[in-house]
């Protein structure tokens, strides 16, 4: 299902005035494809992902999945939470794993949140952990993993629920160039297999060779024209 961001605006209160972190953004990510979002620090990339995930309501604008309006400024938090659980996979800028869960349990948690037995997703979870290269560490807790391993567990976690939309924030920040390129390649490949519309934020354009498209953000706006990286 395609992801449509339409006229999204997000402002944060900033003392007396307010700060426009996302400024009238229009963006479409086709199902199964990966759009890379590049831009300097503070340009609003994470904020745009937060709005796309329904983590915070936009001031204006609409997030659509296919033809369906999913998040607007009026979406209740409980509804947004439900949509996130059922339709969105998210990788945060830092791994944000839960301290007392093992790598495998981080993935199984998703089933539990959906009211299913954690073991019901075990084989898929193991498959995903193997795909991101941390299958051997499945019984370790976050404190026992390296930064890069944590990030890869977080990527696997985002995919375990077979999301329609995948939102990934800086998956390569804890990895070297080679590993980073591999991870982006893995995400684009998995997104294609799942048919998930994927929006991937990065600092490092050199890792994005496998993305279907790259757009740049500056001061809350998408810069025109959007360049396309050869697939």
């Amino acid at each position, binding site marked *: 299902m395609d992801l449509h961001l339409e006229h999204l605006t997000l402002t944060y209160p900033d003392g007396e005035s307010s700060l426009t972190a996302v400024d009238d953004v229009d963006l479409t990510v086709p199902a199964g494809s990966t759009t890379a979002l590049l831009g300097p620090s503070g340009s609003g990339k994470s904020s745009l992902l937060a709005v796309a995930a329904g*983590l915070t309501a936009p001031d204006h604008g609409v997030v659509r999945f296919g033809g369906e309006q999913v998040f607007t400024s009026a979406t209740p938090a*409980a509804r947004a*939470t439900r949509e*996130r659980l059922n339709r969105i996979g998210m990788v945060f800028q830092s791994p944000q794993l*839960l301290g*007392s869960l093992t790598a495998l*349990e981080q993935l199984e948690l998703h089933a*539990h949140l959906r009211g299913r037995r954690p073991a019901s997703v075990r084989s898929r979870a193991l498959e995903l952990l193997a795909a991101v290269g941390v299958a051997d560490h499945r019984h370790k807790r976050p404190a026992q993993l390296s930064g890069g391993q944590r990030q890869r567990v977080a990527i696997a976690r985002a995919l375990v629920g077979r999301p329609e939309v995948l939102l990934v924030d800086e998956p390569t920040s804890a990895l070297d160039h080679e590993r980073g390129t591999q991870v982006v390649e893995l995400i684009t490949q998995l997104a294609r297999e799942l048919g998930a519309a994927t929006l991937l934020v990065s600092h490092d354009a050199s890792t994005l060779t496998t993305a279907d498209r790259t757009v740049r953000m500056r001061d809350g706006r998408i810069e025109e024209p959007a360049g396309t990286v050869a697939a």
Partner: protein
Amino acid sequence: MFVALRDLKNARGRFVLMSVVIVLITFLVTFLASLTEGLARESTSAVTELPADRLVFSMPAPGDSPAFTASQVTAGVWEEWAQLPGVQTAEPLGVATTRAESAGTTASVTTLGVIPGSALAPQRVTPGTVLLSTGAAEDLRIGTGETVTLGGRELTVAAVADSDASFAHTPAVWTSLEDWQAIGARGADGDEPVATVVALTTSGASDADLAAADNENGTTTLTRADARSAVSSFAGENTSLTTMQAFLLVISALVVGAFFSVWTISRSGEIAVLKALGASTAYLLRDALGQAALLLVGGVALGTGLAAGGAALLPGTVPVALTAGTTLVPAAGLIVLGLLGAGVSVARITGIDPHAALAAR
């Protein structure tokens, strides 16, 4: 409780510490409750075990509360009451704490005077004899056939009854009302025989009937349970011990609340992650409250078990009475109040904004 159980395991030290606090508080509350009950029995069992449903007190000074030490009823009064419709029996009962002397020793006892043959005593009593409770027999170290001097009057022990009734922390003995009057009637003016209270068995006498009769006779009628407060030793002890228990219950709720408050704040980052992953507020509250319930039920069960075991090991001289009321009721109270404390603390989960909290993590 997918996450909560793993948190329990992972932060074992913190939860063990908290459990120990709950165990100790439970131990204290259960022990206090059992002591309260034990002391209450020592103070009032001679009254609460009477085969009567109501007691009539005279009111020497209007406006006072009824008291065994102040009440004095005349034959006229109990005859009046016996004629009241709905009253099946109205019998005089004398209550007086006196000094008792046996060959070997002396002790304080409470002498209960009844009409010979009255059901108010556990066995038949006849003039010139005394019926001992097991406690009195132990304290005086005497048995059937021996003599005991009660308030200067020498009486023969007719039997040791199968009863450990006591009153105002002294063991009970039963005599005929006649003997009792010689021992215990305080300031009997004139020649009218007196007792302390009238014990009623009623059937179908309404409260209004009884109140009307009270008005007419200048008396106050209490149910057997309410009559406990007319025992001065009971009234004082019970109030202070019950207050202590109430304080302990409130303190435990606050301690549990404070613990879960700190715990919830320290894991608000993870709660934000869970919300971002799609955990509903209901799911998170269930998780957190389940964790609190597990801790409380475990700690309270252990504390109650320890208190029950400890009380059973104590020598008989410590008046602790273990009943469902002194173990299960405080345990349930601790769990309910603890959950309330935890509930108030984890309620802040609902206010966590995942976007803001994640940015700060």
